[in-house]
């Protein structure tokens, strides 16, 4: 089986490795540059000192705004793996009838399937893992500056989850291919299923993995309103009378400006009864959430693989 699996998938493997190599070259070249500027611009030192780095930050982020703009493109990668590695795996054999050739040799269909799955899933995890490591490193300088890493869309491209998405996409493709039996429709099912899951989990589910932290306090300049590296889910500011307002209004009402004495502003805000309620996920939960989402996608993927195995064993002829 090893020979057959390699012979059938060598083009895919080559394509995957080449793409990864190109991506790696891009990441390494541009990332090295960003890492060095983070240092040479003094931003790293400034942030480490917890100073007021606003100017350097905007300068840094402005300089690399192109990469920030490009960054969402990489969200597609796990889907592409599922479409081109997962969907055709079983569907192509069924479509062309070659399963009737290869399942009537000395090797049974389950051994055949496990060899194919082993190779494709293994390659997926390897390549996706390498990609995720590179992407995390590449994004790090921008994350240090913006504190955006927990944000939807950026959370999805770092750490463990890209590998989990790719694993899930391939499992979905394989199951779809086994049931639908034709490559193009299986790809369509994979596309719809993948997007649905990603939107459902990323858009709605993720914020509820762990009950968010709720902090209600008067919005003074010393309050941490940035939640650097965390994920602000909602913010509500009310005035003394309970009417909805904004933090800007609170500051305006208290004549807060750059040269105003801080204590005066603080007293004013307390006196006027402004309260700001932030619901957020703190930064230190980033890896916890990565783990939960990975386990969630992994669990669904395993269920889909079990379905595919059952279908091939029992239902396909």
């Amino acid at each position: 089986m090893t020979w057959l699996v390699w012979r059938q998938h060598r083009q895919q493997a080559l394509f995957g490795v080449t793409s990864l190599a190109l991506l790696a070259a891009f990441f390494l070249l541009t990332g090295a540059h960003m890492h060095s500027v983070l240092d040479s611009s003094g931003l790293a030192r400034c942030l480490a000192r917890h100073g007021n780095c606003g100017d350097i930050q905007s300068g840094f982020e402005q300089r690399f705004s192109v990469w920030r703009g490009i960054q969402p493109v990489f969200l597609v990668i796990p889907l592409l793996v599922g479409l081109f590695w997962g969907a055709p795996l079983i569907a192509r054999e069924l479509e062309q009838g070659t399963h009737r050739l290869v399942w009537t040799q000395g090797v049974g269909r389950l051994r055949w399937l496990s060899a194919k799955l082993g190779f494709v899933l293994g390659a997926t995890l390897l390549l996706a893992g390498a990609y995720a490591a590179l992407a995390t490193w590449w994004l790090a300088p921008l994350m240090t500056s913006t504190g955006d890493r927990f944000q939807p869309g950026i959370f999805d491209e770092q750490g463990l989850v890209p590998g989990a998405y790719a694993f899930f996409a391939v499992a979905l493709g394989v199951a779809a291919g086994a049931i639908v039996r034709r490559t193009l429709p299986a790809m369509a099912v994979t596309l719809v299923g993948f997007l649905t899951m990603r939107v459902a989990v990323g858009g709605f589910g993720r914020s509820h993995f762990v009950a968010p932290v709720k902090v209600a306090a008067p919005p003074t300049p010393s309050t941490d309103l940035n939640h650097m590296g965390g994920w602000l889910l909602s913010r509500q500011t009310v005035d003394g009378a309970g009417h909805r307002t904004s933090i800007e209004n609170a500051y305006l009402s208290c004549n807060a400006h750059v040269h105003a004495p801080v204590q005066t502003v603080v007293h004013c805000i307390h006196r006027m009864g402004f309260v700001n309620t932030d619901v957020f996920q703190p930064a230190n939960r980033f890896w916890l959430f990565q783990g939960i989402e990975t386990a969630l996608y992994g669990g669904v993927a395993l269920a889909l693989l079990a379905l595919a195995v059952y279908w091939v064993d029992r239902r396909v002829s």
Partner: protein
Amino acid sequence: MSAILQATALGKRYGDEWALRDCSFELPAGRVAALVGPNGAGKTTLLHLAVGLLAPTSGHIELFGSPPRQDRAVLERVGFVAQDTPLYHGFKVEEMLTLGRRLNRRWDGRWAEDRLRGLGIPLGKRVGALSGGQRAQVALALALAKRPELLLLDEPVASLDPLARREFLQALMDAVAETGISVVLSSHLIADLERVCDFLVLLIASEVRLSGDIEELVAAHKVLIGPRRSTIGIPGVEAVVQASHAERQTTLLARTSEPVYDPAWTVQDVDLEELVLAYMGQPALSARPMPAGPAEANG
């Protein structure tokens, strides 16, 4: 002789429809069997059940005494070529042979290479670039290189031109002569198979209507022609397969258990094609010319 393939009340249902229903027959070893029936009769289903691609809904099927789906050792003794001879079109011919060598325990690659070279099929050519006849030969070589004891072929010559068809059957008969292998060939045309097969399984509407040694079956059926009359209770006739009544003449195709001595009937032999057509309910007797009546014979 022990049966190499045995079906007992074999049935396969898809939803509400039975693709195969209550099929029973025994194929002795060393035969070339024709599996014949109109399209949709269940020939492919039967072959897929025999080779373990499908599981029966009812009844059972055994090859060499074992059920093919449970016992993988059975698959090593059976060669199978599915309809439309599936092959990996992107592979070279020699890569298809490598596939066979890697996936099968018993494999005579040298024999397969020699055979294909002898047929003028270049081993380095892509399967997709071969002609239909050449692909069929590659598929046959792949199935035979396993050194199987039984070979199952699903409509192997249906889409081949007459020359390729002849060459395929020549290659197949050569293999039978060389190794004594048993073969089951399915087709919806009996003409293809008459000179090659010595055993018949006739599938009509998902059921086995007839099975047995072709010589015995043909000897056991006769065409009776006589003056128009009832077809019930004719001595010697076990069953009437098909009857055709003209104004003054009755023509029957009947299964006979003993010779028919009644002088009113003219008794003629059947050939296989007439027999099969009659069982299929097709007009098989209408082409028969009126025999010389008593007056003319003495003329």
